[in-house]
């Protein structure tokens, strides 16, 4: 080429030459013309309606209650046209098939409505399902963010099998057939040898019976849950009173709402409860909140009681004593429904229990309700506002005001505690018991505006054909030392394995990340790597997580719109069921394109568990000789496995009262009705069902006095009746003069959900860091300002994090949110670079473990331009690794609150995110807590392991309840 200016021909020629270079690429068509499946590989695209199709108007209905008033009318859901909001100001009509499903992010089971594009079958968005009785068309931020999870650039699209050593991070893609055959063969081998070798460890089930039925059919004691790091404290408190283990407050109709912790914005049943709490507040209800942290709930409450953790019971009993002294409780309710006569007959004489008043027992030796009233006053007379104010460090006027409000609530007192004080403190189960005592005193049990129990407001239909109970007891799940635990001692699995209590042949982690979420994660690391103790580890998960990295198989399972499940929750005083559906599959089937397995419709080869379990169980017992296969056979053709349509058609036809009739009224089958609406309201309201059925306790009454506690080795006053127990982090146990503090590590953020939400870009943009909240007085003492680093020393190690100096936390307490601090071990795999930190693990071979952050969060390039827009680096610190295990000796709950032995300004060598732990100390702390237990071997009244009446997620035969012949450690 000459030195003159480039001619047009030269220039064009140069360009043409460049694009012809091999490797330039780009020969695929720019615009496809039909169905696509872009998730995980590209951004979705959408079709447009023909120009003539004008959008349909929204329905406008004034329901007069909290339901949504404007939404697409259900009769148009099959073919809904609306303007594309993103195209504004141009008017682009889009055609959608609206398919209802159920959110899979938290436990609330809110209804979602997927807008599935009718051309590409890509999901445009998720909105609320207006037909859903629990969520009533609304969602929290996490519901719509399901879209992020589905189109996450880092999602796992294919079954992966480990190659190389566990944790080495080498994987190969395998087919579902290969994975199924291999896993099924190992399950069969295990089942032929024993009944406790297969373990299904579930995070949030997100469904109500399906998998439990499968495990039962396998004939093994294999269900292991996350309950003991979540709600077991509260469950024990409620179960001892009522036999049911969850409260169901009727917030919407309450006069007073008493919440322990930040329940309005982050509690159990986030969105369904939040909307009803606000509905009540708008109608004049008063909200009282106990929380050491100024949460959004506390800020919106009429009365905030910033109590020292563990003192809640004292406040609650001071209020109870106020009602008792003034006889302002509901006498008739108490007389009818409390086991007061049992208390009077069997309570006095137990350790710490006062004698009956001299006036008790009339001429015939009959004990009267009046005797009970006098005894009650004697029992609780010592609780005063002054004492409560001192123990809780809350101004006395606030406690007096709370008592006045509770007293004025009548039978409309809605109360709730779930994961905060009840799971934070040793003896936290008594917090729930003391709280519910106020419901019992005010007669607000199962009343409009009062507090019901979950079993009354949750509807679980009978499964299709129920296999018989298994005769097995897995000692790794419910060992003899915790006969009253609710439920499996799941967070101690690595400690049990380390002690040599047993082994697991096939270990499923299902949407569960035990190494990250449990306390003492390095103990999990040691367990997960030990192939002798944990045989085959199969991680069923939609996304990468820290534990899956150490699995043998990583099997991609679907998000909310990619799976079948049936769910119900006690969101209010009614009953409903919600049907989670694979929305692309349903939309394809609506369009006349049949799908055999859900993974054909889902992205890549992402499957759903419901079909997976059927196929797996079928292959586990190919000839039916184990008696398993029969439970998975099609009712129409027993030679093949049952389909999802067959399964759910049976359930909806036979086990849901009213559904067949409602469906018939629309000329639909019950299954078609559920596919159309995604939910069904079984009962509009269900108040005071105990009038007909009594309570599910041994006495059929509300058990103020618990004979069960007495009979199983806990006869003292502080165990048999509602009573405060000394928390491991009570002021007496935290030596503030020596710089010790209380670490409150488990408050939630409304926009995240544990490790499930780390692939949701919208959510992470809102919240991505978990700094240490610290009061200005403590910050001043330590010499730190917001943004500076502190080193927090726990019982087993330390972590380094930034501080957030705020008056929103009590002096003496530091607080951290619970969900953040995700990490991965490979730069390009194992998690999103914008949501997790690249980390390095080191160990000294003697129990010393270190996690060091090599790179915090960062932007990265993918097909989604948003990943290049990540503007934050701090993705939080994984504090749980440094938490010692604290198994409550009764409930089995991990008592989350930690003693921070020191909190000091970070040193020159400390780096943000550093974690160090010595697992020898882990075992020492475990043994200290273990020593507090009272084993069934020593205390069982009848030679069994556990009271028969207490719940278990899966109940074995009665024979399996016999105490073990060779209990571990004896």
């Amino acid at each position: 080429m000459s030195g003159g200016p480039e001619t047009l021909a030269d220039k064009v020629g140069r360009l043409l030459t460049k694009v012809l270079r091999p490797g330039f690429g780009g020969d695929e068509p720019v615009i496809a013309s039909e169905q696509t499946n872009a998730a995980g590989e590209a951004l979705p695209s959408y079709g447009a309606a023909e120009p003539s199709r004008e959008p349909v108007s929204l329905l406008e209905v004034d329901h007069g209650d909290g339901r949504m008033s404007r939404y697409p009318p259900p009769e148009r859901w099959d073919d809904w046209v609306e303007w594309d909001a993103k195209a504004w100001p141009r008017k682009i009509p889009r055609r959608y098939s609206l398919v209802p499903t159920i959110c899979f992010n938290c436990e609330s089971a809110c209804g979602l409505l997927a807008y599935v594009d009718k051309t590409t079958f890509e999901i445009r968005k998720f909105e609320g399902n207006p037909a859903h009785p629990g969520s009533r068309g609304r969602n929290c931020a996490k519901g719509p963010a399901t879209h992020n999870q589905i189109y996450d650039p880092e999602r796992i699209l294919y079954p992966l099998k480990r190659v190389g050593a566990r944790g080495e991070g080498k994987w190969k893609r395998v087919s579902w057939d290969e994975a199924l055959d291999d896993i099924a063969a190992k399950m069969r081998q295990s089942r032929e040898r024993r009944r406790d070798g297969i373990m299904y460890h579930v995070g949030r089930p997100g469904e109500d019976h399906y998998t439990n039925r499968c495990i039962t059919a396998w004939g093994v004691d294999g269900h292991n849950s996350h309950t003991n790091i979540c709600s077991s404290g509260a469950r024990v408190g409620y179960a001892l009173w009522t036999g049911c283990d969850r409260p169901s407050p009727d917030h919407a109709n309450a006069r007073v709402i008493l919440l322990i912790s930040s329940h309005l914005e982050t509690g159990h049943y986030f969105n369904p409860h939040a909307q009803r709490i606000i509905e009540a507040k708008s109608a004049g209800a008063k909200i009282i909140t106990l929380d050491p942290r100024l949460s959004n709930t506390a800020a919106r409450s009429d009365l905030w009681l910033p109590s020292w953790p563990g003192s809640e019971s004292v406040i609650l009993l001071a209020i109870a004593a106020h009602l008792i002294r003034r006889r302002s409780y509901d006498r008739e309710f108490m007389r009818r429904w409390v086991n007061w006569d049992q208390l009077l007959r069997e309570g006095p004489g137990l350790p710490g229990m006062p004698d009956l008043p001299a006036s008790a027992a009339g001429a015939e030796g009959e004990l009267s309700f009046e005797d009970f009233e006098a005894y009650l006053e004697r029992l609780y007379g010592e609780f005063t506002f002054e004492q409560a104010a001192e123990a809780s460090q809350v101004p006395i006027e606030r406690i007096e005001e709370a008592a006045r409000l509770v007293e004025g609530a009548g039978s409309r007192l809605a109360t709730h505690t779930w994961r905060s004080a009840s799971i934070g403190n040793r003896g936290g189960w008594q917090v729930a018991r003391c709280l519910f005592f106020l419901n019992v005193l005010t007669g607000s049990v199962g009343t409009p505006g009062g507090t019901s129990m979950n079993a009354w407001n949750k509807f679980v239909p009978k499964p299709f054909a129920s296999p018989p109970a298994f005769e097995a007891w897995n000692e790794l799940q419910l060992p003899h030392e915790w006969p009253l635990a609710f439920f499996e001692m799941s967070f101690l699995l690595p400690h049990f394995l380390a002690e040599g209590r047993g082994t697991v042949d096939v270990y499923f982690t299902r949407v569960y990340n035990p190494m990250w979420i449990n306390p003492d994660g390095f103990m999990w690391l040691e367990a997960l790597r030990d192939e002798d103790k944990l045989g085959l580890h199969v991680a069923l998960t939609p996304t990468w997580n820290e534990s899956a990295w150490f699995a043998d198989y990583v099997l991609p399972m679907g998000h909310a719109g990619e799976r079948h499940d049936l769910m119900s929750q006690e969101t209010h005083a009614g009953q409903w069921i919600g049907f989670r559906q694979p929305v692309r599959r349903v939309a394809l089937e609506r369009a006349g394109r049949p799908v055999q397995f859900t993974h054909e419709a889902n992205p890549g080869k992402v499957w759903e568990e419901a079909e997976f379990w059927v196929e797996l169980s079928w292959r586990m017992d190919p000839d039916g000789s184990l008696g398993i296969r029969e439970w998975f056979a099609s009712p129409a053709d027993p030679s093949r496995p049952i389909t999802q349509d067959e399964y759910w058609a049976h359930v909806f036809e036979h086990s849901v009262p009213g559904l067949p009739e409602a469906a018939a009224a629309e000329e639909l089958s019950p299954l078609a009705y559920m596919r159309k609406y995604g939910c069904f309201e079984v009962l509009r309201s269900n108040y005071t069902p105990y009038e007909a059925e009594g309570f599910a306790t041994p006495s059929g009454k509300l058990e103020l006095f618990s004979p069960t506690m007495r009979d199983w080795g806990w006869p003292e006053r502080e165990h048999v009746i509602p009573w405060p127990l000394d928390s491991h982090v009570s002021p007496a146990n935290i030596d503030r003069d020596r710089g010790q503090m209380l670490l409150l590590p488990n408050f939630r953020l409304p926009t995240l959900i544990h490790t499930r939400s780390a692939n949701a870009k919208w959510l992470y943009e809102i919240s991505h860091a978990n700094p240490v909240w610290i009061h200005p007085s403590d910050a001043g003492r330590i010499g730190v300002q917001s943004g500076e680093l502190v080193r927090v020393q726990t019982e087993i190690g330390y972590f380094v994090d930034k501080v957030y100096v705020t008056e929103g936390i009590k002096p003496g307490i530091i607080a951290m949110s619970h969900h953040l601090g995700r990490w991965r071990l490979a730069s390009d795999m194992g998690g999103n670079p914008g949501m997790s930190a690249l980390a390095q693990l080191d160990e000294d071979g003697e129990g010393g473990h270190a996690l060091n952050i090599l790179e915090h969060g960062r932007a990265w390039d993918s097909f989604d331009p948003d990943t290049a827009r990540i503007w934050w680096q701090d993705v939080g610190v994984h504090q749980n690794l440094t938490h010692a295990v604290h198994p409550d000796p009764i409930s089995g709950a991990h008592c989350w609150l930690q003693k921070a032995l020191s909190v000091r300004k970070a040193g020159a060598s400390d780096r943000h995110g550093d974690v160090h732990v010595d697992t020898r100390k882990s075992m020492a702390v475990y043994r200290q807590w273990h020593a507090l237990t009272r084993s069934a071997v020593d205390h069982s009244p009848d030679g069994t392991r556990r009271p028969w009446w207490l719940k278990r997620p899966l109940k074995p035969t009665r024979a399996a309840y016999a105490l073990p012949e060779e209990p571990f450690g004896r």
Partner: protein
Amino acid sequence: MTLAQDPSQDPRVLALAYSRLYAVLARALLRGVDARMLAQLRELDWVGPGDGLEQLATQLHATFELGVFPYAGVFLDPDAQAGACADRVRGFYARAGFSPRPVNAELAPDHLGVELAFMAFVSRAHADGRLGPSSPLLAEFLDACVLAYLPSLVIAARELGEGAWPTMLNELLELVAAQRATLPGPRAAPSLCPAQALLDDARTGLREIAAYLLTPARSGVFLTRADIAALARSRGLARGFGSRLTMLDNLLRGAVEYGELDKLRAGLDELLARRDHRLVELDQRLELGPAIEPWRAAIARTRELVRALHRAPSRDRADPWTSKPSTTTPPAP
């Protein structure tokens, strides 16, 4: 020697190269730029080292969603409607068996991105031999649906300022011109709107004049918000907020009310003259002849109109300046 200069080069290979280039631009316009595409754009020198994904995404939005609207209909239709040339382009698409799945909001079939996808598709068909070298399809399409408005679009975008997208549009125009030169058949000129005696119509008010100016097929130019804002700023006049029509209407009304119409007319004339000059430059460089002439004629008529605005108030009308009753007095002749 480069490929285009090499007479021995197989026309099918050339067609493949065009197909790829059009596909790159189509993807960029329709989907935005991702990392892979950024590498391709850099290799082609269409973006500079400072142009990251973020800048390209914001500029894409600013250029084509707030600035100019890359639809044939916006430039060629008497109502300046996006999608108005849908039937025209669909006719070509159908002839080639191209059935674009409408991908996103921009996908009225006459969106430049879809047209580019079609051009990639047809060029590919030439490369594969599915279309023979004598097929007139691509040439006719380029004349009727691309070259018919692309020069005007390129000029309007360029006036939005320097940036990767105006640069890429310019590169595209060069490519299309070069490819058209290799294709058979005489060049066809676009047909824009016929001349209109707007000021002779008693119903004409300022709003009608603003609408005329905002219709490229009549005025010969695409006026962006930035153009209107610049006119207002340089004359110290308000233009308000809202649609371009509202802004231009405000600007004209303000000019009349405050006696600044002469200055505004001068500004408009300057703009029209500049656009005309740019067309001439393009023609000289790319030999676009028939594609340019109707646009220059339209601009010439619009300059006439702007000049005539000066005379208009002297005519015997109740209120020539607004279609609504006015309380203001028109400026003296």
